[in-house]
Each structure stands twice: as structure tokens, then as C-alpha cells.
């Protein structure tokens, strides 16, 4: 089951579980209807039209708090439900800014522990009931209920109360100051209390149909029809507060689990958008008159996790040697071509706080052998594998089945590590089994990836308190890093954290708790008639309400 990098700001496991070879495309000719001239784009946005979007997974629920696969809900759900403010994907030069959504303005108390939102008064649910501060409080209650067990509940840990002070004014009260306060308050869409408050929280996980049957929305689109495993049809919500947008009348998400089938339908004109075109299919898509290609850097990065509790990986010098022994540039060239680059930091290169001064460690097997020898690893019995205290440097390097890039990378790493006398045995695990060995810490080394959270939170992956309880899967522990992360968490604004973030990136580069492999671009195939996408690191469909369709012919 594919899990895609979620558009929400929390970290996510990128997908790619369905990766069938598309090499067979080379043999076939295009179907060829006349393509639009493209001249209509100059005329600017126009209202009306229906588009069809290909998607791999079906929506599982219409309640964000019960969603498990992130991707499907976010693409569809964020068109129906709204946040208080809309996080903008503009964090290249500075921390993300926010656009008004259900709230028009917000202000902090002097001690930075109370955050007041003023809600817009013209927002109503699709049944005509106004959106109020009561809905905001109800949402917080649901988000933090153990019976609902929302996977994002941790973002609400520092929120002590959400107080309704007037029908359209709500105050979030925090227990501590932190740079993520605003994002923590904004996490999660606002839910309809009058419609969903009727069902006790204890029933939520057993009654998914209730939320579909009682679906009222406040966003630009509402649900017209859902046929499980087939399609989700959204139509313009006439009660959405913005009279101008959305432009499109109807958006149909067609569920097509097979990627190459999606690409076929993009090329025949049956689909207007296919996300994440496989690299092997790119030449065909680029050659099409009907489709244009839009590429953008994503937030995700791939790496090899070393299990630092394993004595072989516990020394930083040895981990540096491992990184030096892996030809990451060759990996990027082979797997991604011009769509990838070697990753150098847990804060990806196009984000404002990225440390540009970190150069990727070179591929230098000779230096790697020296470092390993200095740490006591030598091939004493002449079998080609180095040993220390009689223990050979041999381990399983795990990747998940179906993710072809990672499997290829594991095989390349095996070959390269062999040249310095390390025996890395590729081992493919089914995703769920792999996830279990991650959380249990029963792996030796594993190739993995996730999407950087836009909060620039580094705690979940690198703070020692997250070992066993969070996502510090390499079990990395450094008092210096812990202290800096804690120091950063006491700042009221993330913008003030830049010096600390730079320092943290240097320390992580020095300690190499993981060997960073690549960052890659996402490539979407888009009908030339469709305009205004502005696909971004949050999500391709983030700005769906601004998309518009040029008339055919």
C-alpha cells in the first residue's frame, strides 16, 4: 500500500511502492488528438469545466483524524475542510508565511502563551450553519481524545486549552513557548461540531460511514459522489466564502493503482493530471503535444539508517568511513539523473535554514579504508571482509519491497562497500515488516526516506528522548545535539533559530548518524489546457481552487 509523502508539515514516508517498469513504452506510438494551442492561457483564469486527476489510492475516510494514508485524504479532504490559516509554501527564503483562511487575523499575548484567532463571519458549513469558535474548540477536543487516537495528537501537547471567548473569537492557551506554537495550533482542519459532535468519540473509529453520511464542509469543494476504489467526485461548494473561487466546477479523482495505466490515460487525454511520473516514462510524456511536465523539489530525502546500538556502527569515524565508501553521486546520476542531487543535510537544500556551507562528502574509498583501519577494522584472514576482534564487518542492508529506487540503491551500496571490505547483504522486507523492525530497532542498516517537516523539527529524528518512543530510529544520542534542540524549542519564533539550526546541521554532518543519499524532484504530467497549478512542496493540489481550464479546440 503506497504511502505518499504527506502534504501536511509533519514528516512522512515517501511512497513509490508501486513501481513497475515502463521501459516497454518505447515500442508504441502516440494516440494523438490535436493539442490545445496554449494561446488561451494568456487570457487568464476563467470559470467552469471539469478535470480528471489520476490518483493511486482511494480515500479511506472523510474525517481527517481517522485517516491513515495521509495522501488520499489531503488531496481531497483539504478541498472540503479548511484550516484556520493556510500555510504558504514560501519557505525558500524565510519561515513559511500564513494566509487567512477560516481566521482573518491572529495575535499573541505579551507572554506568548495565549494566541487569539478572529474567525471570519461569512464562513458557513454547506448546510448553512455558520462556522464558529465552538467548532474550533470541538476540533481540539477530538484531536486530543485518546479514543480518537489521532496520529497528529502530539502537535497539540503544549496546548492546555482552547477557549471560546465570542462566537467568532477563540483563544489557544499554551503551557510553554516554542517556535512551533502557531503551526501546532493550525495543525488539522476544523471539523463541524453540530454535525459530528452527535457521535461520541469512543464510536469514531468504528463508524466511518457516519462521517460520510453527515458530511458538511466549509471548503471550496463538496463531495458529489464517492464510488469506493473507483472515483471521488467533488463539485464547487456554492456556500464557500470566496465568491470568485474556485474556478473549476468539478474535479474527479479517478483511482488507478497502476502507475503506467495512469500515464497511458494522461497521454490519451483521459486524465488532466498525473503526479510523480516515473522516470522511465518521462521521455514519452515530454514528447507529448498534449501534456506538459512540471518538476519541483520536494521536501523528502533518502538516507541509510545505521543502528547505532550495534557496536559496529557506534563510532562516528566508522560511519564517516561508510559515507565516504558510498558513491552517492553515481547513485543520484543513475537513479535520478538531473532530477536528483546528493543530500547534505536533514534540512533540504531549498529551505531557508539549509546550511549551504556543507559540501557532500566525496566518494573516497581509500580514505574510508584508512579510517576503518584506524578504528581497528582490517582484513586479517584475507577473505576480502574486514574484521575487528574476530567479528567480520557484515550486515543486512534492508530496503522495502516494491520501491525500485531504494532496491537499486541497496545493490549499488553493496558493490561499493565490498570495495572497502564491508559485506552489506541486501535484504528486502515487506513494508509493514520493515516498519516493525524500525520501531523495534531490530535492523542493522536500512535505506529509508521521509519528508522534512516545515516546522524544521529535528527532535523526532535526532534527540535522544525519541529513541524507542519516537522516530530516532538510528538511536543517535548526542548531549550537544540534545541541548541545541532544547534551546531552539524555547525560542518563540523559528526565524530566531537560524544560528542553532546551522550548528545542528554541522554536528549531524560530523557525526553521520545516517548516511544521507539524495533529494529528488517530483515530476507531474499536466494537460496543456490546465493552468494555475503552482505545485509545491506542501502538495500538488494545494491551490486547486485557483486552477482553471482552457476551453478545448
Amino acid at each position, binding site marked *: 500500500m503506497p504511502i505518499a509523502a504527506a502534504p501536511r508539515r509533519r514528516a512522512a514516508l515517501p511512497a513509490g511502492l508501486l513501481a513497475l517498469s515502463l521501459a516497454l513504452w518505447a515500442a508504441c506510438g502516440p494516440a494523438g488528438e490535436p493539442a490545445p494551442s496554449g494561446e488561451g492561457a494568456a487570457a487568464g483564469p476563467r470559470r467552469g469545466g471539469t478535470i480528471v486527476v489520476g490518483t493511486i489510492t482511494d480515500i479511506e475516510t472523510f474525517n481527517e483524524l481517522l485517516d491513515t494514508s495521509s495522501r488520499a485524504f489531503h488531496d481531497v479532504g483539504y478541498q472540503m475542510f479548511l484550516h484556520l490559516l493556510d500555510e504558504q509554501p514560501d519557505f525558500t527564503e524565510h519561515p513559511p508565511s500564513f494566509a487567512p483562511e477560516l481566521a482573518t487575523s491572529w495575535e499573541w499575548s505579551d507572554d506568548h502563551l495565549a494566541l487569539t484567532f478572529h474567525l471570519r463571519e461569512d464562513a458557513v458549513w454547506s448546510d448553512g450553519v455558520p462556522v464558529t469558535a465552538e467548532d474550533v474548540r470541538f476540533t481540539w477536543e477530538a484531536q486530543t481524545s485518546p479514543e480518537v487516537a489521532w496520529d497528529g495528537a502530539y502537535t497539540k501537547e503544549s496546548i492546555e486549552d482552547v477557549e471560546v471567548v465570542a462566537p467568532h473569537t477563540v483563544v489557544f492557551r499554551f503551557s510553554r513557548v516554542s517556535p512551533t506554537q502557531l503551526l501546532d495550533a493550525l495543525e488539522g482542519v476544523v471539523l463541524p461540531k453540530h454535525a459530528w459532535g452527535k457521535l461520541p468519540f469512543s464510536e469514531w*473509529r468504528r463508524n466511518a460511514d457516519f462521517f460520510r453520511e453527515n458530511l458538511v464542509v466549509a471548503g471550496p469543494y463538496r463531495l458529489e459522489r464517492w464510488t469506493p476504489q473507483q472515483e471521488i467526485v467533488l463539485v464547487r461548494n456554492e456556500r464557500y466564502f470566496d465568491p470568485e473561487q474556485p474556478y473549476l466546477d468539478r474535479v474527479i479523482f479517478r483511482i488507478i493503482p497502476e502507475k503506467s495505466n495512469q500515464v497511458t490515460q494522461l497521454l490519451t487525454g483521459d486524465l488532466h493530471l498525473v503526479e510523480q511520473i516515473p522516470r522511465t516514462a518521462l521521455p514519452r510524456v515530454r514528447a507529448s503535444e498534449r501534456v506538459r511536465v512540471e518538476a519541483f523539489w520536494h521536501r523528502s530525502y533518502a538516507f541509510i539508517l545505521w543502528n547505532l546500538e550495534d557496536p559496529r556502527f557506534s563510532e562516528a569515524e566508522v560511519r564517516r568511513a561508510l559515507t565516504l565508501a558510498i558513491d552517492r553521486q553515481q547513485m543520484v546520476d543513475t537513479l535520478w539523473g538531473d532530477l536528483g542531487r546528493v543530500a547534505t543535510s536533514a534540512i533540504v537544500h531549498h529551505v531557508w535554514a539549509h546550511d549551504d556551507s556543507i559540501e557532500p562528502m566525496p566518494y573516497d574509498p581509500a580514505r574510508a579504508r584508512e579510517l576503518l583501519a584506524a578504528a581497528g577494522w582490517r582484513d586479517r584472514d584475507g577473505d576480502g571482509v574486514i574484521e575487528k576482534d574476530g567479528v567480520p564487518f557484515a550486515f543486512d542492508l534492508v530496503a522495502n519491497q516494491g520501491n525500485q529506487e531504494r532496491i537499486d540503491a541497496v545493490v549499488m551500496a553493496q558493490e561499493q562497500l565490498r570495495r572497502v571490505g564491508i559485506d552489506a547483504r541486501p535484504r528486502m522486507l515487506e513494508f509493514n515488516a520493515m516498519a516493525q523492525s524500525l520501531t523495534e530497532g531490530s535492523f542493522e542498516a536500512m535505506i529509508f526516506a521521509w519528508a522534512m517537516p516545515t516546522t524544521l523539527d529535528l527532535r523526532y529524528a535526532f534527540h535522544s528522548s525519541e529513541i524507542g518512543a519516537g522516530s530516532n530510529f538510528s538511536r543517535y544520542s548526542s548531549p550537544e545535539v540534545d541541548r541545541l534542540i532544547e534551546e531552539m524549542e524555547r525560542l518563540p519564533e523559528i526565524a530566531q533559530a537560524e544560528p542553532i539550526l546551522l550548528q545542528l546541521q554541522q554536528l549531524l554532518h560530523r557525526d553521520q548518524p545516517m548516511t544521507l543519499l539524495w533529494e529528488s524532484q517530483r515530476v507531474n504530467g499536466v494537460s496543456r489546457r490546465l493552468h494555475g497549478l503552482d505545485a509545491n512542496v506542501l502538495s500538488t493540489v494545494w491551490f486547486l481552487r485557483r486552477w482553471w481550464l482552457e476551453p478545448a479546440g
Partner: protein
Amino acid sequence: MIALVLRRLAAALLLLYLVLTATFFLIHLAPGDPTVLLAGDRINPTVAERLRTVYGLDRPLREQYLTWLRSVVIEGDWGVSLHNGRPVVDLLAGALPATALLAFSALLVQYAVGLPLGVAAARRRGAPADGAIRVISLLLYSMPLFWLGLMAILLFAYAWPVLPPSHMRAVGAGELGPWARLADLLLHLALPALTLGLSLAGGTVRFVRNRMIEILEEDYIRTARAKGLSERRVVWVHALRNALVPVVQLLGLSIPFLLNGSLIVEVVFSWPGLGRTAFQAIVARDFPVILAATAFTAALVVAGNLLADLLHAAVDPRVRRA
């Protein structure tokens, strides 16, 4: 005959119980845990723990088994999907018609193609036509189903776009009249049913051919020919009737292959069937759905075997007397 049916039914129920119990323990003992995927992007252990409590997965396995058994056997309640919170029975019932339609159509294709080709090859044994049929059937039999599906899409939906490559209905089919809707459905059914049916037909051709060759050499066929019957009558009436006995059995036994195949075809052609539902449940370790889907498929397979035996008894008097 009634005693035979009752005996077989009792054995079938016992078998079902054993299959389900074994599945229950196997999926719980296999690595991976439903809460890992449920716990969201970061595989957060704290959330996973909460979910285990919510779904009762933190209780001893024996207790979980007894609870599940009691709810299924006594209350007839198969539970709720851990993954999407919908009743398991609704999920499967929603997916069943699509799979039944696909499987039945594929079965038609399988026999409509397999029988005549098998007979034709047997009649022309050793001739170029026989060779061609054997090569084609071997190709169909050995080609991976997903690849056959992708090729079919490339040929008939892209290079020569005459058939839709996915889904049961076209965009906007809801507004069509009843006949146009039926035509739309049949168009959408064409590629998946042909892919699955042809892939299964490969084996049927070879089976029928071999059986017919044996039969055509038997004494009674020589007698029929000596009586001066037309070759067509000899082959299609006298020989084929006997060749059909094992073919009928094969029909019952081919249900597992049909279900297996429909899983792959459902994924390739975005067909909303049981196979996809079961596959997603397995990946997500959605225990209630896996168990109900297993029960359903196991029941179908057992019923298929039973039917094969009964049909065999119907066409072969020796079995009835035994």
C-alpha cells in the same frame, strides 16, 4: 447422493474452521502490525499504543481469538475494518459484484476460447495449426498476468484506442440511459475479462487437447468412424462428451486461480473488486478484513470443489454408484 452431499458439507465446514483459525494465528504472528500503518507518518509508538488499546490488540492473543470467534459464530458479526472503520461485511459485499462479474466473464472467455482451440489442435495433431495453437497457448499460460494486462492496455487503449484501460464506468456514465450504461459497462469489462480469460485459456487448451488426443485413439471412436459417422459428429459428440468429464472438474478447481488472477487484473485495470480489497487489507494488516476475505474465498474454493465432485457425479454414472 444426499448422503454424499451431507458428508462433503460437514467436511467443508470443518475445513473452513481450520483454515480461519490457522489464518487468525498466522496473521497475528507474522511480522508487522496494523497500528504501525495507522499510527501515521512518523510511525509514532505512542499513537500505536493508543490504537492497540482502542482496537483491543493489546489483549492476549487467545482472548482476541475467542472474542473474534464468539462475535463471528454467535453474533454473525465480522467486525469493522481497522483501516477505514467501515463494517467488514459492507466492504466485501460492495466489492463482490465487481469480482463476480469479472470472474464469470473471464470463465466464459476461458472456455469459449479453450474448448474449440483444444479440440481443433487435437484433430490436427502434428499439423502446423496444432503447432501454432500449442505455441499460443503456452505463451498465454506462461506470460505473467500483469504484463499481459499492460500489453493489452498499450495495444487497445493507447496504440489503437478502442477500449477503456481502467474502471467499471466512464467519467459521467451516471447520466447515460440504461442501455448506454450497459454498453459502457461491457466496454469497460472487455479488457480485464479478456486478459484474465485468455491467460486461463492457455491451460485449458492444452488440457482439452491432450484429453481429446487420448480419447480419439480409443476403440469406441474407431467403432464410431467404422459405422460411417461424420468426422464432425465423432469429434464434437462422441469424443468431446467424454473429454468434458475432467474439464467440468477443472471448472470447479479453477476457482482459486480465478480469484488469484482477478487480484492482479483488478489492480492493473482499476477494477473495484474483492482481490484489491483483500490485498490492501493484507498490506495494512487489517485483521478483520483479512479473516472475512479468507473465509469468503475459502468457502468459494470449498464450494467449487464440492460442485466439481457433484458435476462429476452427474456426468459420470460410475461416481454416483460408488
